[in-house]
Each structure stands twice: as structure tokens, then as C-alpha cells.
């Protein structure tokens, strides 16, 4: 999947293919292991409740960020590059949430020889809550 999409074929309003994962301690612990992110609120229900999340431990914002990266990279392909991602962590990732990365193309521009596509992105849960609104810019291939 070197290049999955080409600049000429992308239009403003196009939607990013949805990318989903169900998250629980299996995914959180694996992420903690590689990122050395062993924080009580992500591991222990008592600590999660002390942090005012009634349901207990909750997921890392960094993992949701990684899901945005994955969705973008899967869309554009291995040889295209993500140039920018900005986001805010607005809602909590509860255990067993199904998180889906969504995005919409908002702008296309050629800058310094790169064909750039700007998107609004978010990570929504199974209830449709927007947990991580933001934007991304990717540099894609031309035909």
C-alpha cells in the first residue's frame, strides 16, 4: 500500500475511511508497555474513581492520538506522510468503548512542492460522543 490515494482524486468533503478499535485493558496495557505509560488512573479502578470517573480506570489520550495516526496512514499509504495533527482530549475513553476515527477533507493546497490535504478529524465512541476533535494535514502523491 505504498500510495493509496492521489491528490487529484481527493475532493473537499471526502470522508476518511472509518478506522475502529474496541478498547479495554488489553489495548491499554499494551500501549502502556510500549510507551512506559503506567499511570494509576489507566490501571486501577479505584484511582479512576478518585479522579472523578465513576466507571473507574480509563484509557490514555495518547492511544486515541495513535488511532488518528493509524487511520490517516492507512488512508494515504506507507509512502505518503502525515505532516500535522492537532487535537484536544475532550471526553474519557471508558473500558469497552468502540472508538472510531472519522475525518472530512476541508482543503487542498500545493505548498513548497508538496500536495497537502487538510482534514477535520475526531475519535467518536459508540454513542457518537466526540472525544478528540482536531485537524490533520497529510502530504499525498500526485499522478
Amino acid at each position, binding site marked *: 500500500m505504498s500510495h493509496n490515494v492521489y491528490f487529484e482524486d481527493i475532493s473537499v468533503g471526502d470522508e476518511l475511511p472509518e478506522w475502529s478499535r474496541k478498547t479495554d485493558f488489553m*489495548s491499554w496495557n499494551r500501549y502502556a508497555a510500549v510507551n*512506559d505509560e503506567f*499511570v*494509576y488512573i489507566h490501571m486501577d479502578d479505584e484511582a479512576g474513581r478518585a479522579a472523578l470517573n465513576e466507571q473507574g480506570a480509563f484509557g490514555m489520550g495518547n492511544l486515541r492520538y495513535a488511532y488518528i495516526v493509524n487511520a490517516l496512514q492507512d488512508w494515504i499509504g506507507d509512502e505518503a*506522510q502525515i505532516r500535522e495533527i492537532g487535537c484536544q482530549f475532550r471526553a474519557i475513553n471508558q473500558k469497552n468503548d468502540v472508538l472510531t476515527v472519522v475525518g472530512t477533507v476541508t482543503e487542498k493546497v500545493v505548498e513548497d512542492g508538496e500536495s497537502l490535504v487538510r482534514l477535520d478529524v475526531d475519535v467518536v465512541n459508540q454513542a457518537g460522543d466526540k472525544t478528540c476533535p482536531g485537524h490533520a494535514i497529510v502530504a499525498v502523491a500526485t499522478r
Partner: protein
Amino acid sequence: MATEHDQETLVSAAMMERKGVWRPGKVSPPITDSDIRRWAIAVHWPEEPPAIFWDAEYAAETRWGTIIAPPDFNPFAWPVTSPRAAKPKSGSSEGAKDRSSKGRRGMNGGQVDTYGVPMRAGEVISARNRLRDWDERETRLGQTLFTYTETEWRNQDDELVKRRVSTGIRY
């Protein structure tokens, strides 16, 4: 001790001194293929990660020529020398602090990351950071201070890998 200055602003004298001044940060250990493979497996779990992150033969046929790391890969994970004691983090029941006074409460206001060249096995990444700027204003939370911290990662050839501008919120 609180001063008149403290009552009017959440901006401290220390912040004024640090504003715009780059501070050297960490230097990563050399990145390995296994670091990259494990990261890719974790963030793609339970699906198989893309071959560019673990299959050297496949990667050799791409424009990169080698395995590359996902953009969000953290080469600074698992430091030996940083304080690793089981210090309760904020939010844990043991770590409860008095957050009732002004400016003691905080939250993560998000981040913007700009990416340069990808990271590869064998590379060593150096970080530096600075308090870039701030913005103080009244919000629904009351007097609120937004601080913008910039972190820059460069590889051993001084190529920009990543620039992050993080927003911290205190109120």
C-alpha cells in the same frame, strides 16, 4: 508566600524568565527495529500492523528503503535515569492534593504536532523544549492561564523529526 502580583495574574516570575528560552531535553537511546515493531503492534492491536513497521524486505522496496517508525513513536520511553519510584500520579487516591486555590487546578488543553523526517532503527533522537508563550483571560472557569510549550525532536543529523506545541490550562 502570596504577593499582590500573584493575586492579579497566574503568570509567575519564573515563567517570565523561562519564556522563549530553549532548554536541552532528553537524548534517546538508539532506536531498534524491535522498539518499532512492538509499538506498531500495540497501537494496531488486535489487528496486524502495516508491513512498513516490521518487514525489512517489504520496506526495502519502498521510498524509505528501511523500516520506519510510526509518526507517534516515542523513542524516549523506558528511561533508566529518570525518577521511577512509585510516586502516585495526579488523580490517584494517594496523590490527592489541595486544588481549591486559584491556579492550582489544571488540564491538558491539547497539542499540535508537526512532522518532519521519519524515525528509523539506529537513530538517536534529541529533544529540547521551551515555554513559548501564554495567554491569560477570563473563561467560564474564572481567571484562566493557557500556556504554550514547544518541544522539538531532531535526529543525529539535526533533521527535524517532530515539533509539538502543547497547551496547558490552569485556573
